[in-house]
């Protein structure tokens, strides 16, 4: 069988990303250790090309490779978001790898391979392609989590991530095999047709649904499948943590929504009940456990769990509706994840670059008196934390506002009220750091205080993240119309 050239052109962004990754892996050994920065610029160049190509694929729906891959506004939305966060991660890594004295060229190759996996995940229209994309992303991330090979914590994070990630892939795959038994195909549209024909009463379908939910639940880090998140986020190099917290979560949400809407949309009454429980557990556990953390990377990990819970509200609401209500529910999820990406990336960038004695200072008490030592860094952190807490006029407020609006319009006011209560609780642990930065005096001698290691690349990352948080908070209409245009429709 041959495939037409047209199919290859539709996946040109993926080909560019994989091609650049291979080029980087080939160039790495012949480049001198001092010139590894070239590889980062190469990565950014590839991303810029991809942004151009994908923005021309925003309209219409093109299917390629016998329906294995589909390019539509939904896929394009996630891909553009992924390019932006990957670009910012690469810039952050430029600064971070230097500070950590890690000169690993293949790092950028792994970032691009993971990105290629994520792109396949969000544009896959077949469970096989989605599974392959998930594995490509995960296998790259397992390695990246353990890149600080001299540090036991990084290795431990890598090992734990691998065990739980491989386990979740096994569960996901078993669910896929059961769905294949039901539908005789792994294509999402064939599965949807089979479910409509047979009805949703089949116990095998319910089992497959639960197994898929568990598989994706691990990747999205929702309770009760979150236990790897704090350990891995704390142990992995911070630039990798930022990438995992933002890009891998966005891609997992993208693939998850595609599978559950396009493939299992007919069973939405069943899965929206399932995800209501998951959503409540995620909100409760993420927000409550974050309060007692003393390590800021762990706190941000629990905060990222809690944010997945807020995004799930949109999924739950949309699942209980069809037509208009469903599309605003899904659009609010897309908007939420996009906004979450900017504020989380900004916070992790600061955490990675606030250092003392050549080490990352990731204890919350290291932030004492930061406002006096580094007024600008403290102000940036303040904005990101205020946005994470969802306080206006930042973007975090807009994200929560659209999610809660969708819940109220969808007749789930009680869920919105519960979420508002948890948002109030979350303000406590975010603002506690603000209080530590602004109101507490640093202890010990000046040499042991944490300082921000500035560099042009870091300034650029922080400026972009801050611009995202502030501008999206003031003018959310553009992103909202993009998200509503891209939101999948529940039939």
């Amino acid at each position, binding site marked *: 069988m041959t495939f037409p050239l047209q199919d290859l052109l539709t996946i040109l962004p993926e080909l560019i990303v994989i091609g650049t990754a291979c080029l980087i892996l080939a160039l790495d050994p012949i480049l001198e250790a001092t010139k590894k920065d070239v590889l980062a610029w190469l990565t950014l160049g590839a991303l810029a090309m991809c942004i151009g190509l994908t923005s021309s694929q925003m309209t219409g729906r093109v299917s390629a490779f016998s329906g294995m891959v589909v390019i539509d506004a939904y896929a394009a939305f996630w891909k553009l978001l992924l390019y932006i966060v990957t670009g910012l991660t690469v810039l952050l890594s430029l600064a971070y790898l230097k500070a950590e004295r890690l000169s690993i060229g293949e790092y950028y190759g792994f970032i691009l391979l993971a990105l290629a996996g994520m792109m396949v995940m969000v544009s896959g229209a077949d469970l096989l392609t989605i599974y392959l994309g998930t*594995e490509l992303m995960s296998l790259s991330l397992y390695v990246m989590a353990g890149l600080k*090979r001299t540090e036991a914590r990084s290795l431990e994070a890598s*090992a734990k991530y691998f*065990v739980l990630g*491989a*386990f979740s892939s096994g569960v996901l795959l078993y669910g896929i095999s059961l769905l294949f038994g039901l539908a005789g195909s*792994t294509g999402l549209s064939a599965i949807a047709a089979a479910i409509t024909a047979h009805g949703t009463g089949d116990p095998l379908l319910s089992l497959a649904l639960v197994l898929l939910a568990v598989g994706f639940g691990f990747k999205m880090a929702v309770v009760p499948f979150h236990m790897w998140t704090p*350990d891995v986020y704390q142990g992995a190099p911070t630039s990798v943590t930022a990438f995992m917290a933002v890009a891998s979560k966005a891609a997992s949400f993208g693939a998850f929504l595609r599978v559950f809407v396009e493939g299992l949309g007919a069973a939405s009454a069943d899965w929206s009940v399932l995800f209501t429980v998951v959503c409540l557990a995620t909100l409760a556990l993420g927000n409550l456990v974050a309060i007692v953390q003393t390590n800021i990377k762990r706190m941000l990990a629990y905060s990222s769990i809690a944010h997945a819970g807020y995004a799930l509200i949109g999924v739950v609401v949309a699942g209980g509706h069809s037509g208009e209500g469903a599309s605003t529910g899904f659009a609010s999820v897309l908007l939420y994840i996009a906004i979450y990406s900017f504020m989380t990336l900004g916070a992790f960038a600061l955490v990675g670059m606030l250092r003392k004695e050549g080490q990352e200072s990731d204890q919350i008490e290291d932030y004492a008196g930061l406002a006096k030592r580094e007024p600008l860094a403290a102000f940036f952190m303040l904005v990101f934390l205020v946005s994470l807490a969802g306080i206006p006029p930042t973007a975090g407020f807009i994200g929560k506002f659209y999610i809660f609006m969708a819940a109220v319009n969808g007749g789930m006011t009680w869920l919105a009220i519960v979420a508002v209560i948890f948002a109030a609780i979350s303000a406590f642990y975010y603002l506690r750091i603000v209080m530590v930065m602004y109101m507490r005096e640093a202890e010990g001698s000046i040499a042991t205080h944490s300082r921000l290691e500035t560099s042009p690349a870091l300034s650029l990352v922080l400026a972009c993240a801050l611009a995202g948080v502030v501008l999206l908070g003031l003018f959310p209409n553009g992103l909202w119309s993009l998200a509503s245009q891209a939101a999948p429709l529940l039939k």
Partner: protein
Amino acid sequence: MIPLSAYVAVSAVLFATGLLGVLIRRNFIIVLMSVEIMLNAATINLVAFSHYLEAMQGQIVALFIIAIAAGEAAIGLAIIIVVFRGKISTNVDEMNLLKW
């Protein structure tokens, strides 16, 4: 002729074995083997369904899974070696620098 239910039963038993192995056994390498058993359970399912439904796609997916499982094992073993060199135990319970 062996009925489809027999294959699905074997696959279910394999999947349960793998699941229990990951949850109960504490040695990293045995956990890795248990994950491979879970993947094989899915493969048996796919091939059996593919035969009985006369849909070739299942067997193609099975081939992909075999390739992925090999890649996953390679990366898993590499991580084990680095962890072992870093003088951390390969016992999952003794990996406790990061509290769960």
